[in-house]
Every structure is written in structure tokens, then in C-alpha cells.
């Protein structure tokens, strides 16, 4: 008997080839009806035999397009409309777009085989793509997602491309960035001796330059990379020198997964991430050392080729392991405009491989790591942004401007939290410009009027994001405390705003309720009822403020605030540089000295005590140095890190470390013991608070919880208890997650009004 069903599918189902996919199945099964993009997903009307419809639904859910993600499916009875065939209706724009802006996708296997198929008209064409793959966020200028509103608008389709574009059965039906060598953009290479045009020749030349140890600026999806042969020590050193890049590790792009296996240990989870359509940089344990690539580090960051161009580079003989680092001068955001690349990379790059398709906005590579608690995104950008990260109960739009470092912004529209890509440090003018631009971009793409929007910002009085928020004329402004936002980001991602938890927020710096610099906080409560500070690291001193973050020796001095005499002796015994003694004097006189509970600085202090006496050249360097030192040693002991119900006291911990250090104990063993002691401190305080408040779930958030050794220790400890541990997965634990936490807390606060 013929019946009709109305099916609504929610999730990532637009801009991923979902409608043609549905169309093809319906055709094959001989069903009639239609499919269209609806208000918040895909809507299907289908008529036919009940059994066949059943099969239809099964096939849709079993094998959706690679980049689609079905979160919810609604099936209802419907009246028979007597449709004769199956049709794809074009989408209509509703008053406020609820369709997500899709994220960029790695080239799919179908396009890849065409790329290397001698008979295909797109053979070796670096801009090949289809509805399953290719650029999205990096080409969209505004919504709706339609070719005239993308950076492809300058290339009218040739008849062949146009035919595919309009053919519902084709893989390129409504593939907005589709193109071919006839009608689309091309790559060319420029270096001091001139230019070479023609995709093949340009890419071949680039591969040759890379083989000969040159540094080439290569335009990718969301910006330019600087590439060189990672196994050519001289080339790597030269790149570091020219970029003025200290010790910060370089990311690598490898030819294929087998090459990746020669560099890093790859678990099943890591392989899944490496080959996912987001193609992030995966940080994993190194199997071999590549000199100069990641000094003092036992991890390597590796990614697989994700654009057709990258595949072609390797095809034409580029070295099989390339350094692929964001193109910029040190600490600037990634360069994405051709003119800027040619100008600002002068003196860094030997050549430029330039693609003609403009990049609509800069989007860095994402960084992911699998820790003891599973995969966690450390930098959320290409392949993930700007997809929604959470569902929040708010009708009113909310904009959160995040924190000033590792900034992201989040916009809540129709209850969906849409998070921007990583925008960087707002101290940098370029990053700040990108920040403002992204805010206005998101507001306009989603048609959100500022006057109706609640704007959330961090309480830090010197944050540029905060000053910007205050300048916006909005419905309401709300300041959110940094560490509460850290905890709430995890609750939001878990869709658990009402969940009672113990929240642990450990990081470097955040502005506290009492005006001090927090960073070792324990909270109890929920996002909706509020997070009450119920404990913290014992206050130390931060001599010189940010200077102590740049110079771990200064941080160390600040943790000796109650033991100045001991500190003097330690400094003398270890022959610490003068700077340590100067910092001690500042602590003694309280000169430019700030009270702090920062666990990030405690890690810095431990690193300084164990031999990291220099200035850091990138954020987190000392803590990373300490972690990798610790990983080389067995766990021999645990130092006391007592919890008295209110405070975690670092003094006994530090004292015993000092003793071991002065007795000449191996610093790696001390570093190892330090990590476990911090884990024990967290475990003991959380368990005691959990018992007091009757809470069985703990949230761990903040930059400190990017330390995978610490996480492994915590995993081991909490396994023995009956407490659940939640940490950020798709949203960074570091300040990249702050904007989500801010919107989550606003939702909670606002709904109580």
C-alpha cells in the first residue's frame, strides 16, 4: 500500500551533498516526492510502499555523505500528494538563516581518483572539488551559500561544468566552488627569476625547489604556508632563522599515512583524526627526531595533504615530509592575501606558489591531540570552524568575544553556538583586525542585529576584546569571569548546563573576582545555578606581571614568597641568573608584584627550578619542556601537595623538590614526580569536594590540562574512584574555549531574569 512520510533531518546536512544523496537513493528505490533544505536541516517528503520507505530511511542513516553528520531524525505521517517523480527543491531563504556555514573539507576520494585519472578532464587540476569536498568557509563571502557570494564568482562556469552543476544525479550538483582547467582559476609560481604559469609546470617547479632545500610560500585553503624539506636540517634551520622563530615546533605535512607512521606512533583514534575530512594537525608521540623541527619535544605535529594541490605537490616529487608552517613573520597571524604574501614574506620565502582563487578569510590549520581522556582539539580552525559546537537554550542572540589570547568568538543564534576559527593574540594588530572582522562577519551572515544581542566579555580590564565589547551598542553587556567560562565551555559542549559538577580551571592567567590573577581554581555548582569558588591554589606572588610569564625564573621567585631566605640560598646553590635575585627583591618589596593562584606559573616555576632558566619564545614553552623532561623518567616518588579544604598548598611540594634538586637527584625524576604530585593534589581536592557537596562529576579545563602526562596521571587516579571526568573535546581547554563558556553562562544567567 502506498503511504507518505515527512522526514526531517538535523545536523550537518547542508553544503555537504545531502540533497543529491537523498535524490539518488529515492530514484534507485523508485520512490516519489521531494527533498529541500528546510529551516534547520533537510526536509524530505516521500511516497511509496511502506517497506521501501523503511529501506530508504535505513540507507540514508546508514551511509550519509562523508562530511554529513546526522544528529536527529524526525519521521511523521503525511498526506499523499500524488507526486510523480522525485525532485530537489531549491532552498529558500528564511528571515534569519539557520543553515550553518559549512566548514572546509579535505578533497574526497572520488575527486582524488579523477585527479590522477589520465582520461578525466580535471586530471591534475589543483582546484578539483565536488559536493562532498573542497573549500567552504574559506570561499564564502556571505550567505546564502551560492556561487555569486563566494570567491569563485569571478570564474563563470564553462558549459561542461555548468551541466554537472545543474544535474541532480551528478556529484557536482550545486557544488558552488566547482571548476575545471577550462573555466577555473590556476596556480603559478613566482621567484626571483620570474614566473611560471600552468598548474603542472608551476607545481613541478615548486617540488623541485623544495627538493633543493628552498623555502616556498604555498597558498592553501585558509592562508599561505611556508614549506621546506623537513629532513633537510639546513633548510629547517634557515627557515627558523628567516622567520625569527625561536624554539616553537613546526607542523609537518607528510605524503601519506605510511609516511606518517615512520614519524609518529599512530593509534586507531589518531589515524581516524589524521584521515578525517577536517584533516587537522595531529600531535603525537614522535618515533624519530627531525633536527630543528621540534626542539626539546617528544611530540610531532603531523597532517596529511588536504587539498588537491598538496596531493599534486607530492605527486610531482616534493620531499615526502614537509615543514608546513603558517606563513607569517614571527607571532603574526597567517598571511592569506597574495599581495601581503609577496610583500611580507620577502626575505623569508625563496618562491611563492600562488593560486588565483582568493581566500575569503584566514583560517589556520587545526590542532588535535589524543590524550588519556580521548581526542581533544587544541586549536579549532580549518575543518571545524564555523560549525556549531553546542545547543543552548536561548532565543535571543548572544555574542561572546572570548579572551585576548588564542581568541575565538562565539555567536549564539537560534540556540546554536557557532564558534569562529582561532584568531590569535589580540595584541597583534592583524589578529585584532581579524577579530573585529569575524564578529561583524558572523553577525551579518546570520542577520543578527546588534541591538538585540547580548554581548559577553571577560572581566579583565586590560583586554582589548573587553574594550571592544563595551564599544558595541547592544541589548546588554555581561562580564563573565575567565575561569568560570573555562568550566562552562565543557558543560556547554556536553549539553549539561544544569549538571552539578566540581569544576577545576587551571591555567596561566585570568582576572579573578578579587582582582588577583587567578589560575588554580576549584568551583562547585552548575552553569545555570552558578559556579561558586570553593577552593584554589595557595596565593603566590607574580613579580613583574607578564614578565614572570615570559621568564620562568621570575615565576619561581614568586612561589618563594614565604621563604625568601631559602630562596636566596637556592639561588646561590644553583647559581641562578641575577634575574632570579632581582625578582626576589621585587617580591620582598611588593614592587610590581601581583597576587596569583596560577598553576600555569607553578609549572613554569618547577621548570625554572629544574633548569629552564631562559626566556620563553612561545606560550607554554617551559611547561612543555617540563612535561617532556618528565616523560623520560620513571615515577619514583610523590611530593606532598596538601589540600586543607580550601587551599592547595604548593609550599611542601616546592620544598621537597628543592631538597631533591640540591641533593643532585636527576631532574627528570623530579619533573616526573612533580606531575604526579599535581595530579594527586587535583584528585584529592576534587574527591574531598565531591564528597562534601555530593557531586560525582568533575570538569577539568584551562590550558594546564593540555599536558598529556598530567592527564594520563589523572586518568589513572580517577579510574580508582567513582567520579566521572569531563574535559573539552571539540572545544579547546585553553583560552580558545572561553567564548563558548561565556555564552553558556550568559544563557544560564539570562534565563533566570
Amino acid at each position, binding site marked *: 500500500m502506498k503511504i507518505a512520510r515527512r522526514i526531517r533531518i538535523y545536523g550537518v546536512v547542508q553544503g555537504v551533498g545531502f540533497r543529491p544523496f537523498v535524490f539518488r537513493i529515492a530514484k534507485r528505490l523508485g520512490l516519489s516526492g521531494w527533498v529541500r533544505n528546510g529551516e534547520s536541516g533537510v526536509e524530505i517528503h516521500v511516497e511509496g510502499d511502506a517497506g521501501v520507505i523503511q529501506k530508504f530511511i535505513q540507507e540514508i542513516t546508514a551511509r550519509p555523505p562523508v562530511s554529513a553528520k546526522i544528529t536527529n531524525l524526525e519521521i511523521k505521517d503525511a498526506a499523499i500528494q500524488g507526486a510523480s517523480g522525485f525532485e530537489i527543491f531549491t532552498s529558500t531563504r528564511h528571515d534569519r538563516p539557520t543553515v550553518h556555514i559549512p566548514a572546509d573539507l579535505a578533497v574526497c576520494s572520488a575527486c582524488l581518483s579523477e585527479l590522477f585519472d589520465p582520461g578525466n578532464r580535471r586530471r591534475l587540476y589543483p582546484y578539483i572539488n565536488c559536493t562532498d569536498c573542497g573549500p567552504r568557509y574559506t570561499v564564502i563571502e556571505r550567505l546564502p551559500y551560492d556561487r555569486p557570494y563566494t570567491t569563485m564568482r569571478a570564474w563563470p562556469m564553462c558549459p561542461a561544468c555548468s551541466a554537472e552543476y545543474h544535474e541532480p544525479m551528478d556529484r557536482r550538483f550545486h557544488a558552488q566552488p566547482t571548476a575545471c582547467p577550462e573555466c577555473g582559476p590556476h596556480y603559478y609560481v613566482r621567484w626571483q627569476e620570474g614566473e611560471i604559469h600552468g598548474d603542472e609546470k608551476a607545481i613541478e617547479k615548486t617540488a623541485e625547489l623544495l627538493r633543493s632545500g628552498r623555502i616556498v610560500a604555498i597558498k592553501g585553503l585558509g592562508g599561505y604556508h611556508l614549506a621546506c624539506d623537513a629532513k633537510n636540517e639546513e633548510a629547517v634551520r634557515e627557515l627558523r632563522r628567516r622567520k625569527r622563530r625561536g624554539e616553537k615546533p613546526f607542523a609537518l605535512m607528510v605524503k601519506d599515512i605510511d609516511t606518517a607512521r615512520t614519524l609518529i606512533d599512530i593509534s586507531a583514534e589518531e589515524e581516524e583524526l589524521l584521515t578525517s575530512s577536517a584533516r587537522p594537525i595531529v600531535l603525537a608521540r614522535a618515533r624519530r627526531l627531525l633536527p630543528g623541527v621540534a626542539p626539546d619535544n617528544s611530540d610531532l605535529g603531523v597532517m596529511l595533504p588536504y587539498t588537491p594541490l598538496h596531493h599534486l605537490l607530492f605527486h610531482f616529487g616534493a620531499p615526502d615530509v614537509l615543514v608546513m608552517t603558517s606563513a607569517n613573520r614571527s607571532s603574526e597571524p597567517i598571511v592569506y592575501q597574495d599581495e601581503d604574501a609577496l610583500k611580507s614574506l620577502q626575505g623569508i620565502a625563496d618562491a611563492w606558489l600562488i593560486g588565483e582563487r582568493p581566500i575569503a578569510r584566514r583560517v589556520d590549520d587545526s590542532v588535535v591531540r589524543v590524550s588519556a581522556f580521548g581526542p581533544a582539539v587544541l586549536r579549532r580552525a580549518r575543518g571545524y570552524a564555523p560549525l556549531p559546537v553546542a545547543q543552548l537554550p536561548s532565543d535571543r542572540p548572544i555574542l561572546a568575544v572570548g579572551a585576548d589570547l588564542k581568541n575565538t568568538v562565539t555567536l549564539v543564534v537560534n540556540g546554536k553556538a557557532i564558534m569562529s576559527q582561532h584568531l590569535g593574540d589580540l595584541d597583534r594588530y592583524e589578529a585584532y583586525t581579524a577579530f573585529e572582522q569575524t564578529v561583524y562577519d558572523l553577525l551579518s551572515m546570520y542577520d543578527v542585529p546588534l541591538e538585540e544581542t547580548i554581548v559577553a566579555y571577560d572581566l579583565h580590564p586590560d583586554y582589548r576584546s573587553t574594550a571592544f565589547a563595551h564599544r558595541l551598542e547592544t541589548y546588554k553587556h555581561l562580564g563573565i569571569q575567565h575561569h568560570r567560562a573555562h568550566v562552562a565551555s565543557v558543560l556547554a559542549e556536553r549539553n549539561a548546563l544544569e549538571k552539578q559538577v566540581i569544576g577545576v580551571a587551571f591555567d596561566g592567567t585570568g582576572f579573578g573576582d578579587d582582582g588577583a590573577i587567578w589560575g588554580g581554581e576549584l568551583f562547585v555548582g552548575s552553569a545555570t545555578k552558578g559556579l561558586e569558588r570553593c577552593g584554589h591554589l595557595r596565593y603566590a606572588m607574580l613579580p*613583574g606581571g607578564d614578565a614572570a610569564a615570559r621568564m620562568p625564573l621570575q615565576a619561581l621567585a614568586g612561589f618563594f614568597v614565604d621563604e625568601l631566605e631559602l630562596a636566596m640560598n637556592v639561588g646561590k646553590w644553583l647559581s641562578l641568573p641575577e634575574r632570579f635575585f632581582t625578582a626576589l627583591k621585587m617580591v620582598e618589596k611588593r614592587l610590581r608584584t601581583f597576587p596569583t593562584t596560577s598553576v600555569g606559573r607553578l609549572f613554569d616555576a618547577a621548570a625554572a627550578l629544574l633548569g629552564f632558566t631562559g626566556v620563553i619564545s612561545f*606560550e607554554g614553552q617551559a611547561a612543555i619542556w617540563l612535561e617532556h623532561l618528565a616523560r623520560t623518567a620513571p615515577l619514583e616518588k610523590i611530593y606532598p601537595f596538601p589540600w586543607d579544604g580550601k587551599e592547595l598548598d604548593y609550599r611542601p611540594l616546592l620544598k621537597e623538590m628543592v631538597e631533591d634538586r640540591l641533593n643532585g637527584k636527576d631532574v627528570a625524576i623530579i619533573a616526573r614526580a612533580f606531575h604526579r604530585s599535581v595530579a594527586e593534589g587535583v584528585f584529592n581536592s576534587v574527591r574531598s569536594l565531591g564528597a562534601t557537596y555530593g557531586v560525582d562529576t568533575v570538569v577539568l579545563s584551562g590550558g594546564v590540562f593540555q599536558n598529556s602526562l598530567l592527564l594520563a596521571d589523572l586518568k589513572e587516579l580517577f579510574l580508582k574512584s567513582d567520579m566521572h571526568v569531563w574535559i573539552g573535546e571539540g572545544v579547546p581547554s585553553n583560552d580558545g574555549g572561553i567564548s563558548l563558556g561565556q555564552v553558556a553562562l550568559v544563557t544560564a544567567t539570562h534565563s533566570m531574569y
Partner: protein
Amino acid sequence: LAHGAGGKASRRLIEGLLVPYMMGDKPTELNDVAYIDADGRRLAFTADSFVVNPRVFPGGSIGELAVNGTINDLAMGGAKPLALVITLILEAGLATSELEREVAAIAKAAQRAGVPVVGGDTKVVEHGKADGLFITTAGIGLTDPRVSLSSKNVQPGDQVILSGPIGDHGITVLLARGELDLEADLTSDTRPLWPFVESLIEVAAPGLRWLRDPTRGGVATALNELARDAQVAVMLDEESIPVRPAVRGACEILGLDPLHIANEGQFLAIVSPEYADIALKTLRSMPGGENAQRIGEIQAEPKKAVLARSRYGGTRMIDMLIGDPLPRIC
């Protein structure tokens, strides 16, 4: 009240409270001097108060600061300093020898600058009601008709010239408090600036747009005020800004930016491009002006911003000083 450090907080105090009471809603450019027209001549008038801890530091003392600070405000207004009046507020218990020393310092500084002290007053307050010695001054000067100095004259393309190394005064005073064990061979830069301005007027009057001595809040605050008042951007070339290694070193440890440190003997000049070379050459030919530098340029965009470009570190945004800068690095 925590408005003493210069910069944003004190600007809020001035604009939020003082201006509305004293000047009504009349839109006005906030300058260190006021102009009074009398019989076809334009006089410049200024008043200032001085509080410093410690009162004596390498290279100067509060008395010297009071004289130089006041006449420098006149000089920055394009006026030749003519005369000063000085009021002393003494806390009971201040040693006579110290008072005498400061009076001598005032006399010596006035003599050096060639500006007579023509009057004043002395008050003694109870012990605990003041911190040793406060000095209040007023100064009068005569403007040179060849120049018109105002942020409104500043245009894109104009050059930013700095008279010499920055931060010496602020760091010297900080070190003189003895709270920091730092070997630093530094003295305050306090000095009268009128001779420099006078020479600039001689060679570059038509190209002189704006002058400012970056005292409290430093170069960063002075230029932010300019960018805001003139609706322009100031683009600095980070490497060209003269900073002594001792100042840089101290700032590094203290977590401060030399651009935020107070100066008492340096000034910023905005000069049109065609007069920039001669202005710079003239300054460098004078004793004490050898280290003058062109440190940047005025741009149309981004309005109201001060940026510092470095050859290797990209472009930083330079804020006004907001009290004591808080840590923000994670």
C-alpha cells in the same frame, strides 16, 4: 582614587569631572597650556603640581622637576617661557636642610633655563597631612606667531620625531626608591626643552604641527591622545625608538613597556614631511639632541590607534597606560 599613573584613568577623571565643571559643554582641546590674547599678543599660561617619591634621585630632584616641567609645558605650547610662580606645601617635620636644598634646586633650574621665579607662596600643613613636600607652579609664556600647534593640524604623512632616549626619568626614580637591586647607570633626563623648540621654530615653523613632552603615561599615552584628538593613526617603527639598554632591561624585568614610562626631558614633534629632515638635523646638531630619531609616521587609518611595527615581530597595538598594567599572558 587611583588616577595618578597618567593615562586612561586620569583622562577619565579630567574629562568626566573637571571639564564639565570648569569649562561647561564648550568643546575644547585638552592641552597643558591655555592661551590668552592680550593686545595683539598671545600669551600661554600653565599650572602644574609636583609630587615625587623619592624627592631626590640621580640627575634631579622635585624642585628641578617643578621648574622644568612647567616651562616645558609652555614650550610644548609653542611659547617662550617668561616667568614662574612657585608655591610650596610643606609637611611639618620636613628637614630645613632638605627645604633649602630644594629651594636651591629651583633657583638653579630657573637660572639654567633663563626663566625668573617672580613670586609664590609657602604653606605648612600638619604632620601626616602631606608627604614631605608638594610643589605647585604656574608659568607664563609668549607664543611665537610663526607657529600654530594643534592636533587639528596633524595630517597623514606627517613624521613623528622624538628628541632622544625614552624612559630614563621613570626608571631612574623607580630605582631610586631602592626597591629593586639593579645595576643601572641612569639619570633622570629632566631639562628645559625651550632651546630645542626655539631652534625648530627657526628652521621649520611652517611644518611644525604638534609638540608634546611625554611625561606621565609616556610616549604611548601622548601619542594615543594625539591619535584620538586628530582622528588619525600613528604608525611607529619599533626598532627606531631610542631606549637605553638599562631602561630596556629594567622594563623587561618589571613587565613594563618603555613606551609607557615617564620622561621629563624629551619631546615628540609632529612635523610635515618636507620639514622632517631639517627638523631632525637641527635637533641632532644641538647638545643633548644627538639621539633624536624619526620614529614613525601619521596615517589616515586605522583611526585613533597607535601601532608599532617591528621588522620581525609584526605589528603591535600600543595602548594608553591604564594604571599599573595587569598580567594578561596566559
